[in-house]
Every structure is written in C-alpha cells, then in structure tokens.
C-alpha cells in the first residue's frame, strides 16, 4: 500500500457514496450538488492515472459547465412537486436493482476471469522472429505481470495536443467533427428552449 493506493481507495469510496446519494435523494438540487461532488474524486483518480489534462477538463466541463446548466434549469423550472408524492413501485425498483446488480456481477466476472494485465505484453510490436517465441512463453508460464508503472509526465496538454493535432495521423478530422457537433447542439438547444425566436 503506497500513497496512490490510499488515494485510490479514498476516492473510490467517496465517488461511490456520492453516486448513490445522487440517484437516491429526493430533492433535485441536492442531487445536483452531490453529482458535482462526485466529479471531484473521479478527477483525482484521473490525476493518479497521470491523465492530468483530462482531470482538469473533467473539473472544468463537468463540474463547471454541465452543472451550471443543470442548476440553471432547476432554477428555471422550479419543480414544486417533489418526488415525495411519487407512488412506490417496488416491483420495478426491484427489477432495476436486479438489472444493475447483474450487470455489475457480469462485469466483475469478466474483469477477474480474463487476465487483463497479462496479454498486452504480446501485443507489443515484437520483431517477426520473436513473435512465436513470446507466444509460446506466454502459453507456458503466464507470469502475473506487475502493475504497470505510470510515469508522472504523461497525459499533459503537450502529449494530448501532439496526439490530437499531428499532421499525418492526428485526430484533426474527429476534432473538427466534434466542434461542429457542439455548434449544432448549442444552436439546437437555443431553438428548442426559446419561447419565440
């Protein structure tokens, strides 16, 4: 157990508790603020995974922009009828809980059954001669791979920018497509929500 383990455990517990609160509290405003609080431990886990730029983006976009949108809409529509009056439908709740639990169990089974840490070693671009040899070695003794050491200088704005805007194999087309999508969404949101244009 080193520092990252303790950080991960604390952030994971906090995120799960806050997510449960978000889906269970009656008041929409409380749910919005627990959701904001949930984004921060997830951002901290991004940091621990050395995705520093994404951690900042997470806080800025989710905890900033999206939550401002939510709180503004809550203020606008001012839902006076709280969910306290909702009739309990225990059957449907039970079905949903069973669905969620089954999904979690299936994922847990998949994650714990298939050795995720092992098989990426063979995916490395080995020279042609070594490919068969490494495959045979893996079949013979699948040694438990040590957890990959994440170096600190990774996932900063520089690396993300280099990957995004590389001239030959970057993601420039995807970037432009997403920007057009956001523009369309902004215009569409205004058209939808405005009373009279």
């Amino acid at each position: 157990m080193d520092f990252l383990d303790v950080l991960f455990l604390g952030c994971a517990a906090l995120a799960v508790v806050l997510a449960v609160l978000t889906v269970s509290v009656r008041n929409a405003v409380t749910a919005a603020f627990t959701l904001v609080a949930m984004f921060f431990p997830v951002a901290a886990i991004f940091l621990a995974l050395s995705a520093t730029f994404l951690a900042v983006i997470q806080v800025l976009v989710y905890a900033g922009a999206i939550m401002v949108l939510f709180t503004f809409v809550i203020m606008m529509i001012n839902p006076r009828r709280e969910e306290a009056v909702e009739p309990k439908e225990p059957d449907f709740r039970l079905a949903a809980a069973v669905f969620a639990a089954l999904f979690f169990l299936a994922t847990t089974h998949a994650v714990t059954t298939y050795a995720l840490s092992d098989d990426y070693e063979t995916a490395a671009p080995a020279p042609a001669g070594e490919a068969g040899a490494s495959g045979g070695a893996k079949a013979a003794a699948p040694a438990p791979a040590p957890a990959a050491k994440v170096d600190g200088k990774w996932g900063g704005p520089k690396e993300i920018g280099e990957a995004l805007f590389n001239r030959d194999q970057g993601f420039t087309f995807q970037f432009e497509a997403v920007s057009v999508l956001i523009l369309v969404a902004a215009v569409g949101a205004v058209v939808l929500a405005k009373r009279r244009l």
Partner: protein
Amino acid sequence: MVSAMLLHQVFTLENTLLLAALLFSIGAYGVLTRRNLLTVLMSLEIMLNAVNLVLVAFNSFQWSARPAFEIQARTGGQVFVMMIIAVAAAEAAVGLAILVTLFRKKQSVDTRDFQRLQG
C-alpha cells in the same frame, strides 16, 4: 486479513475497472428508477463518467509505459475521453433544452406525465 490487504497493491487496472462498473451500475439504476427527468439526466452523466474512467484506466495502465509505440497509440484513449466529454456536454445541453420545452407543455418534469405515446 487487513495486513494481507496492506501488502497488496490496490491501485490496479482490475480494481479501477471494478470501480467504473460499480459507478455504471449505480447510474443505470438511477436512470431506470427515477421519476424526475432531471435526475435521470444526472444519472446518465454518472454512467458517462464511468465509461471515461474505463478508457483512461486502460490507456494509463497498458499504453503509457510503452515508448515503442507512436504517440497516437499511446494517447488514443485519452483523446477518446476528450471527445466523449465534448459529446456529453452537447448531450446535456440538448437534453436540458428538451426538458425545458416539455416543462412548458405540461408544467411537470415527471416521467409519468409523458406517456402519450403509450397505447
């Protein structure tokens, strides 16, 4: 048992994936059970965040420590997450605009009030 846990490494790819699966299940439960459209959208954000966590975990644990690959392969997962965050922002904007329009029509954000298409 506690001392054995203290020796173990907790911050692994598997445990991060399990956390993401747990968050996704919580979000799915919220989407299925909540009556308030606002909280349904909030649960949807939880699910999206869980998916982002999966992508970042795979990228970080399996790709970042391999300088043999070119930079697109190594940061591809994080670029995916950037795109997903952008699409999530667009989705939230359009979803909340639809919600406001529905509220103008029915003076309610309860999902049971929007069952006109039910036969």
